């Protein structure tokens, strides 16, 4: 089989994995070597679906001994199969990288023979790139559930990032749709987390020790294939951040590729839901929100019409209006229409003198939304009438970004 055909088969087989980020590692290039890692991550292209392409994301093979219901590569599917050789993948990565097509390699795989055998193949690719090609670019390796701890440790020494997909939001769904147990997924996550903590501590003593997975671990789950609520998903996400110090949790709107009576019948992937979940995730990572503030027992689903930050503000009108010239940064962050950059600008600009609505506009605040929640020098913006209807109308958004997770860390500027 020609290499291009393999690439097309094994790229297509990997495309449903949402995570593509190349952020979180920062590595200087070595003299005479190839590659460096850029802290904020870099997007190199955007595919026809608007998703960013950062890494060469492929499977080592799409042969698989398992038969997960939602997966295009399951053994009962009649699809064209292919397997790379280690050398082919190394050459593709190096040549794509030198042309600046990619930030590095994101390697996952179907399971051949058993978990360890497969994991060893992935490690062999990473090892050859690092040791023989002096490749300093980004490597993300997927951990095959069930792989032994010693192999996971080795993977973390060559990779910037390792990840285990949780795949589905509950144990019940996992049992129903996959042949993976919750145990086989959660255990390596815990191990990786432990390895990272241990490695960072030991490196404090001896700087020479190699970094274990400098960009940490991530996971992803499929949204809309099973009946869990948004509350369940957001709470699970929060637990991943808190318990396993995950760097990112990715959501992937369920795209039906198989007909299987265990799966729901949907014609289009639930992109709007995926988008709302990413907004909720963003609120937890950058805006200081707790899961319980975003989705409650009474309202376990995120709103279709209004983004979760505005929903929270509307539920908490008693905390507003805020005086922009004195309010705490943490509260300013929570005002609809004020993003993180604007909040940073507000607190630095007000040191130079008090701010009025024109200043806020220059700073980049969306006054159409923010006006209902703030005062400047004690006054609301002229002609602001707070009624339920007015606020609701202003909070409704038409977003064109639906379903596009941002892959680079939000860049904060001091200025």
């Amino acid at each position: 089989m020609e290499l291009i055909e393999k690439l097309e088969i094994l790229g297509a087989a990997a495309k449903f994995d949402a995570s593509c980020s190349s952020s979180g590692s920062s590595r200087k290039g070595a003299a005479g070597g190839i590659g460096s890692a850029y802290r904020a991550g870099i997007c190199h292209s955007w595919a026809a679906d608007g998703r960013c392409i950062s890494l060469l994301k492929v499977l080592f093979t799409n042969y698989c001994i398992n038969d997960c219901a939602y997966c295009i590569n399951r053994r009962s599917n009649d699809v064209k199969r292919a397997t790379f050789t280690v050398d082919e993948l190394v050459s593709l990565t190096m040549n794509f990288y030198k042309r600046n097509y990619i930030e590095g390699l994101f390697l996952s795989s179907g399971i051949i023979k058993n978990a360890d055998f497969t994991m060893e193949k992935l490690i062999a690719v990473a090892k050859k790139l690092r040791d023989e090609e002096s490749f300093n670019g980004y490597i993300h390796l997927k951990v095959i559930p069930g792989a032994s701890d010693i192999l996971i440790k080795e993977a973390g020494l060559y990779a910037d990032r390792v990840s285990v997909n949780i795949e589905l939001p509950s144990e019940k769904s996992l049992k129903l749709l996959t042949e993976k147990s919750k145990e086989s997924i959660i255990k390596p996550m815990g191990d990786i987390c432990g390895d990272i903590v241990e490695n960072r501590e030991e490196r404090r003593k001896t700087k020479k020790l190699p970094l274990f997975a400098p960009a940490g671990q991530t996971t992803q789950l499929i949204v809309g294939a099973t009946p869990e609520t948004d509350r369940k998903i957001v709470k699970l996400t929060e637990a991943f951040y808190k318990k396993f110090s995950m760097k990112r949790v990715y959501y992937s709107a369920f795209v039906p590729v198989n007909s299987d009576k265990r799966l729901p019948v949907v014609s289009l992937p639930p992109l709007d839901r995926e988008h709302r979940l990413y907004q909720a995730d963003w609120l937890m990572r950058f805006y200081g929100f707790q899961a319980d503030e975003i989705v409650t027992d009474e309202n376990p689903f995120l709103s279709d019409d209004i983004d979760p930050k505005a929903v929270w503000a509307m539920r908490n009108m008693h905390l507003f209006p805020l005086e922009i010239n004195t309010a705490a940064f943490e509260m300013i962050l929570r005002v609809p229409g004020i993003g993180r950059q604007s909040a940073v600008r507000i607190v630095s600009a007000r040191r130079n003198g008090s701010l009025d609505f024109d200043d806020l506009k220059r700073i980049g605040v969306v006054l159409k939304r923010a006006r209902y929640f703030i005062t400047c020098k004690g006054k609301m913006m002229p002609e602001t009438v707070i009624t339920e209807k007015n606020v609701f109308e202003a909070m409704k958004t038409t977003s064109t970004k639906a379903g596009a997770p941002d892959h680079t860390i939000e860049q904060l500027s001091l200025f």
Partner: protein
Amino acid sequence: MIFLYDGTFEGFLSAVFDAFSAKDEVEIEKKEGWQPQLFADPVEVETVQEKAERVVNKLLSICGRRGFSAMIQIFLSEEENAETYTFYLIKSVIKYGSKAFSRFQDEKITRAMEFRKRVSKECDKILGILRFTELANGVFYAPFEPDHNILPLITGHFYERLSGCRWMIHDLRRGIAVCHSDGKMENVEFADEMTSHLNMADLLGKSENEEDFAKMWRGYFKIIAIETRTNPKLQRQFMPKRYWKYMTEKKNG
């Protein structure tokens, strides 16, 4: 008062030095292309290395490398009156210190910072979408036509990243280029103005394998999109059409 400089950064800094104590409003413009105006009696600034250095040191001591590089970005934006805005910012920084950068109460400062943002946004974008082609002589060659004069701002990134390669990055719009070999970076001296705007890949030919890898990348680019999520508007929002010309996966053929 209008100050005319020679178009170089040193020349601009010399103008800053000379204009600093001017009483009335200052405008700084390039000598080349300046249209004489009625009643305008511009000062022609002489480029003096020592004056430029004094301005640089002064600014570094007040706002550090980070602040100084913000000024360079605004200067390189080549937006309308970029030099005058940069001068205004420099004056404010000398008056208020680093705090001047967050004087959003001041319309001119806000505008200058807007220029800076455009430049740094374009830099970030270009770091991702610049494409190198391996030429027949083994050099990796990247042509591009940025909106802003960002070549000097991006070479460091590739210097570090591709230190094992010989490469050349070429701004075809401005006819300037930087090349790298064996850890040394240099500005390319072109034989003449016309050559400086020529695409070297057409001139020197591509390496034997080049088309194979380009073809594989195009193939990969196509299949990685999820059909049921197709969203060309979103794609163009992230990757504006004006950049497609030099992108392997987007240009024709």
